[in-house]
């Protein structure tokens, strides 16, 4: 029959086309899988190339650079106050936290110190940007693993934190609020009480997350024992923040090496560690970090001293000659600036050490031999912001 014949021909043609496509994908070692630069499983435009053998990953290489903006070069032609506008965009979920280490480095070189009121407010805003950042992680992790609900919860409660940042600084995403020697403005009226309420919301989100996600059997099956990173490997790659604490290292820059200019010594909180080093541990650490962060904010809100918010600094800022390294515990991990000044209006060289760059460089090591869906889990739990890798 002619109909079946033509159907047969169509089938053969389709098979031939499939074979051609497969030939392009398949290499000697199996299949090459490209995730990104545009892919639902990526944040931003991180491209991941994985060589597969069946379902297992043989080799997995992240390819950054699709959003490289050359901030280190651009910093060299901007004056010190102008630099904060750029570096706001490095980790765009916790923007204020990016400004602080650079400003502290400039303050160190100029030997000025912000007044205590500015220091405390600075610390509060630093913690608020941490909450804004990590609460998105909690929601995003659920979405990546197939649980949509917690994503909506996280975005709902994150608004309260962003509203507080906006009320104080005028910007939800890019505050550009920190200045050499203090802050741009004082807090608005009624802000403290509202921030207490927002902290209450965040703590409720943490409880919800714990019930909905951490206790979930499917979540545990997908994260426990997945992507285990030992302590030696973590320090050797320079992983920091929650990723390092999840390997059992009791190390938090806020407590252990807090640079002058932030007043974490006024608050009492706990630095949590987890011995497992797997995806579950990293998630758990971040959840506790949010909880402790709300407690830090609550304590600092009650101990804001009176006084000015700006030290006396010259109108045109010339930073004396010298070199300074300042690192702070940012939401994603240790972020530092190595600033070289030649006594000019502009920095001579700024080396930006961003947390995600080191955290993601571990991916080729940790994904060796895992299954394809676990790559998503590992990437989501390592938690990166693309701007923080590419700078």
């Amino acid at each position: 029959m002619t109909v079946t014949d033509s159907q047969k021909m169509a089938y053969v043609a389709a098979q031939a086309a499939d074979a051609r496509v497969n030939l392009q994908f398949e290499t000697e070692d199996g299949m090459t899988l490209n995730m990104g630069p545009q892919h639902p499983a990526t944040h931003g435009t991180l491209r991941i190339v994985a060589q597969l053998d069946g379902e297992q990953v043989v080799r997995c290489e992240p390819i950054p650079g699709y959003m490289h903006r050359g901030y280190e070069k651009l910093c060299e032609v901007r004056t010190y106050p102008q630099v904060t506008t750029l570096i706001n965009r490095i980790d765009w979920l916790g923007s204020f936290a990016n400004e602080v280490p650079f400003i502290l480095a400039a303050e160190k070189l100029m030997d000025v110190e912000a007044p205590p009121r500015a220091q405390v407010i600075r610390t509060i805003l630093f913690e608020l940007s941490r909450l804004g950042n990590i609460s998105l992680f909690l929601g995003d992790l659920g979405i990546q693993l197939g649980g949509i609900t917690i994503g909506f919860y996280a975005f709902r409660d994150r608004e309260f934190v962003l509203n507080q940042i906006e009320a104080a600084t005028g910007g939800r995403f890019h505050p550009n609020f920190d200045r050499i020697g203090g802050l741009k403005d004082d807090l608005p009226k009624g802000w403290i009480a509202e921030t207490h309420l927002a902290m209450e919301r965040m703590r409720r989100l943490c409880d919800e997350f714990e019930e909905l996600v951490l206790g979930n059997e499917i979540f545990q099956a997908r994260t426990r024992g997945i992507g285990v990173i030992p302590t030696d490997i973590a320090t050797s790659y320079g992983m920091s923040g929650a990723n390092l604490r999840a390997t059992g290292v009791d190390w938090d820059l806020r407590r252990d090496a807090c640079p002058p200019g932030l007043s974490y010594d006024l608050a009492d909180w706990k630095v949590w560690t987890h011995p497992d080093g797997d995806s579950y541990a990293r998630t758990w650490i971040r959840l506790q970090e949010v909880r402790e962060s709300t407690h830090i904010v609550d304590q600092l809100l009650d101990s804001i001293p009176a006084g000015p918010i700006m030290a006396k600094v010259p109108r045109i800022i010339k930073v004396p000659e010298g070199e300074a390294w300042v690192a702070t515990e940012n939401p994603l991990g240790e972020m530092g600036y190595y600033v070289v000044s030649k006594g000019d209006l502009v920095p001579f060289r700024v080396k930006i050490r961003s947390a995600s760059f080191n955290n993601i460089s571990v991916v080729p090591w940790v994904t060796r031999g895992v299954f394809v869906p676990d790559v998503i889990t590992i990437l989501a739990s390592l938690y990166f912001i693309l701007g923080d890798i590419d700078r």
Partner: protein
Amino acid sequence: MRTWLTAGRVIRLSSADTPTTESSEDVVEAVRDERREALAERLTTVLGDAVVETHIRPGDDLWVRVNREAWAEVAEASRNRLGLRFFDFLSAIDWLPSPFGRDMDAQEDLDAGASSSEPAPIVTGYAGGDTRFQLLARLFDIDEHIGVTFKADLPDEDLSAPTWTGTFLGAEWHERETWEMFGISFTGNRNLVHLYLPGAFEGNPLRKDFPLLARRVKPWPGIVDVEPMPGADEEADGDEAGAS
């Protein structure tokens, strides 16, 4: 160091068990820094002749300049014998004063810091240096909470150094970045390919003699507001609008 009196209600409830070194130095107004001096001494004994110069800024940081030939041994000894196990970063500095000035062509900015036309001499920073390019790396001791910034001179005719990837796995990406941004190669790093830039990119962007094209094409307006406010006098801004 603290210049402001503590104002308001202050509750000291820090989680840290021990007082930080900063607070103890506040009292003495110390010029000495025993911890960092001791670490510098240990580094010198372990590394021997590899250490060229050290510089300590009390209460802040320790800079150590080492020989380029011993660059890999420095990492190995620091990690395995001195406890500096945390790899912070690895990069480089180009000490050449920028031939393009500050790329600030607005008259106000030029007046604020007049730049001379003859090329300025190369002046290196802490712990000295004799060459244009210097390697810059930082290691940290997680237990003792102390860090060291390492530097190494690179002669212009041979911009290469031994790799750190044998000791610190994370150095691979940093060396790739340094390689493409400064043109410094690392012997022993087998994966020295472009990280950020496209494969066919020419030049090393972070070198000082690499022009920032955006600034070459369109001068930075500086503190002059080139865009007239809506409703501003058209004639007054006529020639500026025509120029841009």
